[in-house]
């Protein structure tokens, strides 16, 4: 992948990423790779599905209801699993448009199909070896941080 300069015009809000990942080593690697990226971003890390729903869903007391620009979501999570988190995101009007990228150890066709049935934006399988995993995360960074346009985040045109 190749590096492209950050866009020079238009307001670019810092990209807010929610990472839902229960494996501490994976989380550290993901955070390290993405935070090193040239596009300014901030990662909020949660380790289980229930915490993710608390963070995202609007609450009676006015809590929750955070709107990250993009969500990186593991599937095998404690308390509430990733597919259920995805399902609830998609059935909540204020959250439905948020791109969700699954990053899971599972390459099960059933899991992939279910994720897409809940309109996952992309489904990635964690490589078993460290070097390939790092390459994947670099490419995820380039593609989603550098190129992809997110709803509610203004970028300059033709960058």
């Amino acid at each position: 992948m190749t590096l492209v300069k950050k866009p020079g015009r238009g307001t670019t809000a810092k990209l807010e990423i929610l990472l839902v990942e229960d494996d501490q080593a994976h989380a550290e690697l993901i955070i390290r790779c993405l935070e090193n990226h040239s596009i300014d971003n901030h990662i909020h890390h949660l380790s289980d599905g229930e915490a993710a729903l608390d963070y995202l869903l609007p609450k009676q007391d006015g809590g929750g209801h955070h709107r990250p620009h993009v969500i990186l979501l593991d599937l095998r999570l404690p308390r509430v699993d990733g597919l259920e988190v995805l399902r609830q995101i998609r059935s909540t009007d204020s959250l439905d448009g948020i791109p969700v990228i699954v990053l899971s150890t599972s390459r099960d066709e059933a899991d992939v199909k279910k994720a897409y049935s809940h309109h996952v934006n992309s489904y990635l399988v964690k490589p078993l070896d460290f070097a390939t995993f790092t390459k994947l995360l670099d490419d995820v960074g380039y593609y989603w941080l550098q190129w992809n346009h997110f709803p509610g985040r203004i970028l300059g045109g033709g960058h």
Partner: protein
Amino acid sequence: MNGEPLTILFVEDNPDHAELVMRSFEDHRVANRILHLSDGEAAVDYLFRRGDYGDPEKYPRPHVILLDLRLPKVDGIEILKIIRESEDYKTIPVVILTTSHAEMDVSRAYQYHANSYLVKPLDFEKFTKLMDDLGFYWLGWNHYPWPRGG
């Protein structure tokens, strides 16, 4: 990384953009089948096997759709809506590749569950880089809801 071939449906009316995209896919080391159509109506006919596109051997079901927004006959958002409302294609990944960076277009695309929204760079070299990165990501890393190959 996946090595099996993918079928990509590419809908783009600008012949210069189409040529750049087709050429960059040809360069990509993963063998794929790219089918290019230049208007929205042909895209819908293709997907639903109407008219000229009846033969599934010749016109196979795509794994992913690369879709411009400003298209003749049926525009990109309309096509996206039609795709998402159909039983057959509601889960197919759709990557928008357009000249528009207007917030309204971005919002509407995600509202109808576009998987990704990309803006064509004005600069030829950057456009080529975008296509390389798009290729690595969607042809290499992403997993699809139905099997690759064939």
